[in-house]
């Protein structure tokens, strides 16, 4: 018993984990750069209504798709709307959807996966079979029904995206937790009588952060593209509003004639994702419990 307490205490000291991680992150220049870029983008998105040179819906049909010029720095789309403005406004949608929907998926997925993995046995089997069922249901029908029952609403978008994206997250976390559960310090924590919730919250979840962060950085781009697909189907944002994903998918159609309609939104999305990725990698390294030994 006393040995168990000693093991537990030792593990408990890792609770300065967050401070350590922050120190380590500060040393990672690439990750810091990523963080800066993201903060800048968020500020830009917040200030867009005051900074944008035109209205996002303002069109000039006679102008049509014009290449970049002094009036329109990034050119105009086929309805003669300023691309810079549309990319800026699109960023508001994409960033919001990317972050919020991913956060929703993250929250549900991590908790669900952690509980399933930690409880194991029948509970785990039941919970994972539910995931299988949700995986298997036809997504298109689900979307169509959502639209019909609730009409068109941006909140539905989060719901629809969250509903798909948490599944994989839950799977990954569960796998991680299954192996963590065998570790000594968890057994120690159990033996000193800590409740399952406390253990999941204090030990399991922090230790799965590495893979979760990596997967999250992978999820954000797919969420942004999923948003474009759902908006195209009529769920989510409606024209004349736009998002990066939508701008890119329309840009693909005309990439030979009007390459700027694809390149600039594509570039913007790529920069954001790279920043996110570097930050994610940095965070992962910084949070790696083993790294503290070195």
């Amino acid at each position, binding site marked *: 018993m006393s040995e168990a307490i000693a093991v537990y205490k030792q593990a408990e000291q890792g609770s300065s984990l967050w401070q350590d991680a922050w120190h380590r992150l500060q040393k990672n220049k690439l990750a810091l750069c990523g963080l800066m870029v993201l903060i800048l983008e968020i500020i830009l998105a917040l200030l867009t209504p005051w900074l944008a040179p035109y209205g996002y819906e303002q069109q000039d049909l006679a102008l049509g798709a014009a290449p970049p010029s002094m009036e329109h720095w990034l050119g105009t789309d086929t309805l003669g709307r300023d691309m810079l403005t549309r990319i800026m406004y699109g960023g508001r949608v994409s960033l919001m959807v990317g972050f919020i929907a991913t956060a929703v998926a993250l929250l549900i997925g991590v908790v669900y996966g952690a509980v399933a993995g930690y409880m*194991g046995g029948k509970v*785990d089997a039941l919970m994972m079979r539910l995931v299988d069922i949700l995986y*298997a249901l*036809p997504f298109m029908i689900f979307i169509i*029904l959502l639209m019909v029952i609730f009409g068109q609403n941006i909140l539905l978008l989060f719901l629809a995206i969250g509903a798909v994206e948490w599944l994989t997250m839950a*799977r990954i976390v569960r796998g991680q937790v299954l192996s963590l559960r065998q570790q000594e310090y968890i057994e120690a924590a159990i033996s000193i009588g800590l409740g399952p919730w406390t253990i999941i919250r204090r030990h399991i979840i922090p230790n799965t952060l590495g893979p979760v962060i990596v997967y999250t950085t*992978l999820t954000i781009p*797919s969420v942004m593209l999923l948003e474009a697909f759902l908006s195209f189907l009529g769920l989510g944002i409606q024209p004349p509003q736009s998002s990066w994903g939508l701008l890119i998918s329309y840009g693909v159609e005309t990439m030979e004639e009007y390459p700027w309609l694809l390149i600039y939104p594509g570039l913007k999305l790529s920069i954001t994702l*790279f920043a996110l*990725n570097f930050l994610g990698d940095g965070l992962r390294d910084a949070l790696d419990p083993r790294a503290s030994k070195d």
Partner: protein
Amino acid sequence: MLKFISGRLLQAIPVLFIVITATFFLIHSAPGGPFSADRAVPAQVIKALNARYHLDQPVWQQYLTYLGDLAQGDFGPSFKFPGRSVNEMIFGSLGTTAELGLYAMLVAVIIGVLAGVVAALKPNTAQDYVPMSVAMVGICMPSFLLGPLLVLVFGIYLEWLPISGWGDIPGDKILPAITLGASYAAYIARLSRGGMLEVMTQDYIRTARAKGLPEHIVIIKHALRGGLMPVIAFLGPAFAGLLAGSFVVETIFQIPGLGRFYVQAAFNRDYTMIMGTTIFFSVTIILFNLLSDILATWINPKLRHQSGGAES
């Protein structure tokens, strides 16, 4: 092991049953029937069509009839394509999609693992950043963008490869396989890099190195085994997802595969076809998840004791 497999297969039965039931009632509650059309369809025509497909019966009765047919392996006739049975359409196009999926997976695994391992060997150097950045681009690049790009470059401008078709002209399978495999390659690259990094710090690798084994032996014989664990876990669900997601690639490249039906059936309200493809893909998902769990246990015997209990 056998107990584990048979246990999982037994669990699959209620899963499938729930999927079938939920899907059946979901699709019958979606607005717009299979026969609604742009031009008003005369009442007597709707009546005749509804009678032909038993849509004039209460939904629960249709459901029981469907289950009965299903028990005999009959998915029923397609609503959209009146002369075809769903069995014929699924099994007729399954081979193509499976082949496409297999090639795409090969592309994904070969490129992904190579890039991931190369990157993990020298973390935080150019050798790491370059392949990982490419991987990042691969993840961001949706197939609806990559496909047309590849077609334009290799098909239209360079004229090296055919731009459409499947098995008609030599080489017409290359671009679709790459397009479908690319984003998975990127995921695999990231996963294998992460896995390798984790493993390379483990004691047994240090021991192997200390014994003076050449580096490539250490990597191939020892590190890869553990380092590719996350990849193996990913492969099962990925392959199933790849089959279901082949719609875009099949459309871009004019490939007569199953993915097109899966999406179109929903839009056409082709009830039986939605049911058929959904059941088919559920079975695939269940089987491949099981397969990837088995593979994981087989590669890493250490897991055998752990997961044996936890999985059952």
